[in-house]
């Protein structure tokens, strides 16, 4: 069980390496430029949906980036929500 945070756009090595590693049972929080991976009807969000992991985006970062049409299955969370996730997941891998 790993909590992944992605702070890089879908065109980055961080995104593709995260995709390779992440597994069902993990969670992923998109932040910073990672929010763009939450855009609905994109290859990036479709790829994330196929991983089976629980998907989230930091709401403030999505808002800043103009990511308003968020893909199905990606939950908007605030910082309190991120802390809550770290309570449940013993370890975090930061991808950037």
């Amino acid at each position, binding site marked *: 069980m790993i909590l992944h945070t992605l*702070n*890089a756009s879908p065109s980055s090595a*961080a995104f593709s390496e995260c995709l390779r590693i992440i597994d069902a049972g993990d969670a992923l929080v998109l*932040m*910073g*430029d990672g929010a763009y991976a939450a855009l609905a009807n994109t290859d990036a969000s479709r790829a994330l949906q196929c991983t089976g992991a629980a998907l989230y985006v*930091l709401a*403030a*970062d999505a808002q*800043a980036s103009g990511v308003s049409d968020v893909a199905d299955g990606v939950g908007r969370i*605030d*910082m*309190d929500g*991120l*802390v*809550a996730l*770290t*309570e449940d997941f*013993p370890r*975090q891998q*930061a991808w*950037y």
Partner: protein
Amino acid sequence: MIYSLLVLSSPFSGHCSRSAAAFAQSAIARGHSIHRIFFLDAGTLASSANSVSAQGEQSAVTDWAELAGQHDIDLVICITSALKHGMLDQAEADRHERSSATISRAFTVSGLGQLVDACASSDRLITFGG
């Protein structure tokens, strides 16, 4: 739970350093304790005493100063990274014959042993990078 944070992100690029400060605030609000926040590489710039934000903007430097003002948290900047980035406390400024200290008093300059200790002493180690 006991948390420590590792902050690698510069406060001057992207949101990540601000997010780290906000994470610390939320963790405290949820009843957790922060053992240490360790700043490494460009993250050490968060300790700047002299950074001036453009009007209408707030940088992470202000967020960290606010966090330090509200809570008694061990904010440590790694000495090697700090020196390279020009982040000096008075002792280092004297030692390296620089005209003045450049960091806020809320931060302590120390070595990587503090990061190692943070890993050993914490239930959660959260990294903020990029």
